[in-house]
């Protein structure tokens, strides 16, 4: 059975196609892996019956010769996605045991292509966090540990459950979302691949909103090719989302392994931040060398407004969140606390339902939108956002793709940064820029640090140019030959 769970998505799909094993066998193996991995706390809801039912249906389709592109592939679904009849909580107490009467467009696309759902994946509450420690269901444990150490590490966040589940071979791939780095940073911390596509590639319909102008769904997968296969299925125009782009979805997998000869790779000098571990800097240099060897032209570029990205992000995202989360008022679904009057019901419901980090961001967001502060904070942040997008526009005159580290550190220990929100926010320093600019960006595992923890490199592309991003990422993947797996301790 271990053999089946260690397959890549691509490998598993081939095996199913060649009838080397059935979808039910494949799913059964993953269901067992999920059960055995409960100490990781990656899943907040296991749906084995549903998984086996879907797998049986997939076997019937494979037998009938009308299998979808993901037919029989067991996946995990981040709890931010609404899943019809299956509890969706965004890992917040405020949603109680809310069972949506609808399926998100992205998960519906995957299931429509034959994917099998193993269950719902843990995450930071409402996707607000960089360590999966704000989840109402408790933190996720990173499958990776420091060589010879026993400390439990964070898998990153907010898609910590997605990253851990993929890294631990609990599923062949997982859905995730990225508002400021929530796909890429956990991918980097767990030695997996995660891509945040161009804003508007994936529909936000049925995904619990955090910050509407920044949120994008994407996959976390074992390989660049797997990520490309999943994204091809997840993406597509959706008339139910006004910000969804009405463009064709290419076969992203066709870009994987494509020659990068002559590709101009930009290295933004502003991403060399203070206090960055030398190992990460070295890995970045290594990445540059790999791409040069693969025939890329390396250019140093400048993104001068980078240092303003994080502050701008922590204004725009909480502002939108403070409004998006107003609907959780105890009136129609989810938690409802008692109170003597309407105001008390609101206050008690939201006080009991939201965790500390969510409350902090609602307060920040409410503050920056308030009369008298709006211009100084929110409006200013929007201006910064435009400058950042212009920085990228100028960079694209010199290069086709940008190479940066994904995060300024490797995975850290649970509890290490919970006391200092700013230290936690600093983790997003390399990732928020592309959310603000709406650009596609991927994290690829590129090596291990001295402690044996995985590190990721980030590739950023032009809007809608995921193809180049996948091509460059697969060149790094190939050159790095990253084969390390977390040693099983759970």
């Amino acid at each position, binding site marked *: 059975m271990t053999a089946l769970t260690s397959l890549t998505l691509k490998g598993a799909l081939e095996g199913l196609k060649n009838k080397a094993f059935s979808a039910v066998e494949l799913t059964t193996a993953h269901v067992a892996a999920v059960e055995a991995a409960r100490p990781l706390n990656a899943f907040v809801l296991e749906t084995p019956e549903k998984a086996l039912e879907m797998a049986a249906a997939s076997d019937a389709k494979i037998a009938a010769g009308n299998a979808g592109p993901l037919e029989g592939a067991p996946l995990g679904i981040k709890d931010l996605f609404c899943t019809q009849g299956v509890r969706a909580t965004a890992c917040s107490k405020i949603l109680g045991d809310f069972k949506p009467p609808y399926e998100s467009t992205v998960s519906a696309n995957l299931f429509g292509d034959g994917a099998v759902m193993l269950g719902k994946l843990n995450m930071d509450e409402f996707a607000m966090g960089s360590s999966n420690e704000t989840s109402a269901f408790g933190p996720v444990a990173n499958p990776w540990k420091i060589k010879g150490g026993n400390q439990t590490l964070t898998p990153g966040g907010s898609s910590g459950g997605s990253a851990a589940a993929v890294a631990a071979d609990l599923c062949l791939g997982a859905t995730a979302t990225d508002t400021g780095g929530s796909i890429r940073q956990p991918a980097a911390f767990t030695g997996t691949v995660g891509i945040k596509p161009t804003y508007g590639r994936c529909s936000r319909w049925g995904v*619990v909103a955090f910050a509407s*102008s920044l949120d994008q769904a994407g996959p976390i997968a074992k390989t660049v090719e797997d990520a490309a296969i999943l994204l091809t299925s997840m993406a597509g125009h959706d008339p139910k*989302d006004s910000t969804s782009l009405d463009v064709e979805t290419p076969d992203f997998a066709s870009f994987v392994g494509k020659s990068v000869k002559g590709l101009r790779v930009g290295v933004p000098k502003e991403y060399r931040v203070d206090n960055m571990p030398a190992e990460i800097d070295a890995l970045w240099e290594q990445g540059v060398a790999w791409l040069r060897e693969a025939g890329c032209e390396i250019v140093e570029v400048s993104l001068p407004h980078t240092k303003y990205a994080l502050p701008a992000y922590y204004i725009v995202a909480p502002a939108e969140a*403070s409004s998006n989360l*107003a609907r959780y008022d105890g009136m129609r679904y989810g938690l409802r606390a008692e109170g003597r009057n309407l105001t008390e019901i*609101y206050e008690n419901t939201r006080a009991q339902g939201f965790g500390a980090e969510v409350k902090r961001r609602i307060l920040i967001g409410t503050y920056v939108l*308030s*009369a008298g502060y709006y211009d100084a904070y929110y409006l200013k942040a929007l201006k910064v956002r435009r400058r950042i997008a212009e920085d990228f526009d100028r960079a694209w005159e010199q290069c086709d793709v940008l190479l940066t580290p994904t995060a300024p550190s490797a995975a850290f220990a649970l509890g290490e940064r919970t006391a200092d929100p700013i230290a936690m926010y600093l983790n997003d320093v390399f990732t928020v820029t592309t959310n603000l600019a709406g650009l596609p960006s991927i994290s690829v595992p590129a090596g291990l640090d001295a402690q044996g923890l995985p590190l990721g490199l980030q590739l950023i592309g032009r809007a809608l140019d995921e193809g180049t991003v996948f091509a460059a990422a697969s060149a790094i993947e190939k050159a790095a030959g990253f084969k390390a797996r977390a040693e099983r301790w759970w």
Partner: protein
Amino acid sequence: MSDGKTIKGRTGDWEMVLGLEVHAQVASNSKLFSGAAVGFGAGPNEQVSLVDAAMPGMLPVLNRYCVEQAVRTGLGLKAKINLKSRFDRKNYFYPDLPQGYQISQFDQPIVGEGVVLVERADGSSFTVRIERLHLEQDAGKSIHDLDPNATYVDLNRSGTALMEIVSRPDMRTAEEAAAYVKKLRAILVTLGTCDGDMEKGNLRADVNVSVCRPGDYERFRETDDFSHLGTRCEIKNVNSYRFIQQAIEYEARRQIEILEDGGRIDQETRLFDPTKGETRSMRSKEDAHDYRYFPDPDLLPLVLDPAWVKEIEAGLPELPDAKKARLQSQYGLSAYDAGVLTADAALSAYFEAAAVGRNAKLVANWTTNDLAAKLAADGLEFDASPIPPANIAALVELIEKETISSKIAKQVFEHMWAGEGAPAAIVEKHGLVQVTDTGAIEAVVEKLIAANPGQAEAVKAKPQAIGWFVGQVMKEMAGKANPAAVNAILKAKLGVE
């Protein structure tokens, strides 16, 4: 001599200044951002989509038809159509607002400045400048009186499209404010962009009232500096012409009394209580919400294709002002008659159907007076009139041909209203044909002169006294004698003139 604007106070004269925000429900089969149906009379919460109920992950999608209706309305108000506008969120908590915010348009509305020409009751007119029109979602309905300990919420109305039409403070009397709403309603109904049903709340007004001293308003108009005007209070959600006037009269009086007692007007939001005829404070400026408006990130800026706007413009129906001018020139009506007809689209349609080939002035009189009174008494509109326009036309034709007198026509009309059918048949059935046979009239006249020699002498001395004989002849002939013939014969027989 009062100009109608002046309000006498203890300390001198006052004037009121009025500006209105009219909320008009967009005539559309579905809501502004969801596909849910819009309708009146559905059971509670039967017309609620997942978007209207603000379920997690639901997103708004703008209804193109509602945008078209707003553009059409803007064109009807001769207003600037903004080819780029934006939707914003207005944030506040209330159970009938499931999202916790209303999607509205804050600083970039779809329609900019326009103008409405309004007629007063005396036929004179004035203009009201329109500041803007924007699209927004309506909230649901909170029902507080079904249970002493609970509030029920009906979300059927939640998400329904509203047009908020904001006027400049250009009305100076309660009558002018009501006349403005009446005119606005006529434009909207003609355009088909709002059904104008005020009883159902589909058209309602927030009325801003302030008072000032004579001359202040003129200074304000010269400078556009609001400091020349008094502090305003906003009376929310008034939904009839009568209540609008009552609320304004009461509120202006209230403000004057406070000022004359040396007090200050607090800027606040007030509610009108129709049973008491009073306004009362709802919330003060200090309690006003900070709505934290910001651009809705779920929606893209609304960009209109100028060609599409032109297309809508080309398809506009005839608007009340144009219709009024046409009725005057085409039918030779007075401005007053044309104005009365234009105020009600069904009435003018009725009139035009009846006026073909007939004396238009007579048709206008019959429709706007006799028929209008009957319909109003029965609560009917002109498009539901039991008397078809062809029968009013036939009645007027009988008068024109002197088959019946105007007086007899009144009787015929009563029979028509009673459902007896076409006027010619009624005239025949009841023997109401006018007698123009001079022989028959002469016989009656001779008989009366013979029977009343004293009266006959009196007429010779005082010709006006002939009226007595006219009355007697008419009485004798059951009103059917042709009045002109009666006069001529009497004069000849009595030897007057």
